[in-house]
């Protein structure tokens, strides 16, 4: 968050804010600087490894092979909710604070937009557990593979994911210069923000090579559409919804990620 101090490359820096792809920092003195964790250090699961993990989790007998903390955590999860079977997708709903949460556990290889690799959480103001029970929220429709197609394209085109992807392509192609710390003196007149360029280009030359490159990057680099497809096919008809009155052990990492990401 802006104002936080952290240690980086042997220096203590204060995070001032983000400007497009750059983090702006100043040198600072702080008694308790934080240690930043790099997201790229997370271990991405391949499809096969994810499959093995799912099978291991589905057999309570094999939990003793895990370290104590993990097997305790799984046993606690089985008490409070369930540990999903290998071909099931578990969806849990629970209230927390003034919000209701829905967490699902695909346990698949990286699909995109997951809070972390194994759970996807959303929060809403309405009680989603109730909505699922009374059929106002249809989970099968939510996970319908048909939506991969026009809906996904339309969403992607508008998303900040896509704009960022375009920004990278624009810089690589030389369309936009990366701003260096000294250059800012020349004033805002010398730069055009890439999301403005993206909007104009999309309207007038939707087939432009930079847009195609940006889309290809976004569609495979950050979301893997074919994997998403496989996943949706696998879970068709196998969604298990458990309504809980509080957060489950399995949901804790996802909830922590949300808190961290939103700076609540």
């Amino acid at each position, binding site marked *: 968050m*802006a104002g936080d101090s952290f240690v980086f490359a042997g220096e203590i820096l204060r995070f001032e*804010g983000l*400007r497009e792809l750059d983090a702006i920092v100043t040198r600072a003195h702080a008694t308790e600087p934080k240690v930043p964790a790099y997201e790229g250090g997370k271990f991405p699961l391949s499809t096969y490894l994810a499959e093995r993990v799912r099978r291991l989790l589905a057999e309570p007998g094999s939990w003793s092979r895990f370290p104590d903390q993990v097997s305790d955590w799984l046993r606690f999860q089985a008490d409070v909710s369930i540990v999903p079977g290998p071909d099931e997708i578990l969806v849990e709903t629970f209230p927390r604070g003034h919000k209701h949460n829905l967490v699902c556990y695909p346990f698949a290889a990286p699909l995109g937009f997951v809070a972390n690799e194994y759970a996807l959480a*959303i*929060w809403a103001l309405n009680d989603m557990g109730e909505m699922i029970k009374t059929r106002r929220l249809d989970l099968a429709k*939510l996970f319908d593979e048909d*939506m991969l197609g026009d*809906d*996904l394209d339309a*969403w992607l085109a*508008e*998303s*900040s994911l896509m704009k960022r992807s375009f920004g990278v392509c624009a810089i690589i192609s030389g*369309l*936009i*210069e990366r701003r260096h710390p000294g250059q800012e003196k020349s004033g*805002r007149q010398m*730069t*055009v*923000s890439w999301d*403005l*360029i993206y*909007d*104009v*280009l999309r*309207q*007038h*030359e939707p087939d*432009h090579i930079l847009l195609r490159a940006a889309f290809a990057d976004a569609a495979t680099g950050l979301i893997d559409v074919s994997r998403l497809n496989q996943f949706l096919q696998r879970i068709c008809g196998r969604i298990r919804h458990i309504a809980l009155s509080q957060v489950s052990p399995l949901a804790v990492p996802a909830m922590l990620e*949300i808190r961290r990401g*939103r700076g*609540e």
Partner: protein
Amino acid sequence: MLNAKLDLMPESAPSLRSHILVANHEMRPLAAGALYWEAEDTLLVADLHFEKGAAFAALGMLLPPYDTRTTLERLHKVISAVEPSRIVALGDSFHRSDLAESLAEDDLAMLTRLQQGREWYWICGNHDPHLPACIGGTICTTLTINGITLRHEPSENGSGREIAGHLHPVARIARRGSVIRRRCFATDGNRLVMPAFGAYAGGLNVLDQAFGTLFLRNRLEAWMMGRADVYPVLGSLLLPD
């Protein structure tokens, strides 16, 4: 989930206040970035920055050359919605004065059509201090209508009671766990600074030093532009960049 609207400013939620009070005159901000002064049947826009793409191309940065056309189309849409009898462009209408003479034929024709049957005023800006006659309309440095002065750069002295452009205000707020950053109309009820209308015109956070002491802090409001509506936000809720 993939269908969820990403714009957290809902299209259909009406804001309780639809008019900005500038020195006791009611003005209606439009989501496209224009201000409509109903009592005077006057539409105000600022910082059109026509031909900014062309100016950059001349310097070697080959941006998609559609910004003038896009800005003209957006202008056409907002003019058609309101059909004002008078339009005032508050400066920096052209990214460079001389580029006004090299407008593409189609663009000039579109501009001429927009001007037909109405009064059109070009206020000079720092980017376009001298404008050629070929763009039509009336060229001036300031314009005062019913006690409110329209100018390009906001003035630090004087009583306020003005509407200006130049600063391209943008506001940033945190809402329901997300941060939203949008162009806005910035005002304290006395002076108003318009958002930049141009397709390639950037933005500057309204809390930035450049805004200095233009607004009475405790009365600052940022009217933020959503997709279809404009939302008043109290100054105390605003975040710096």
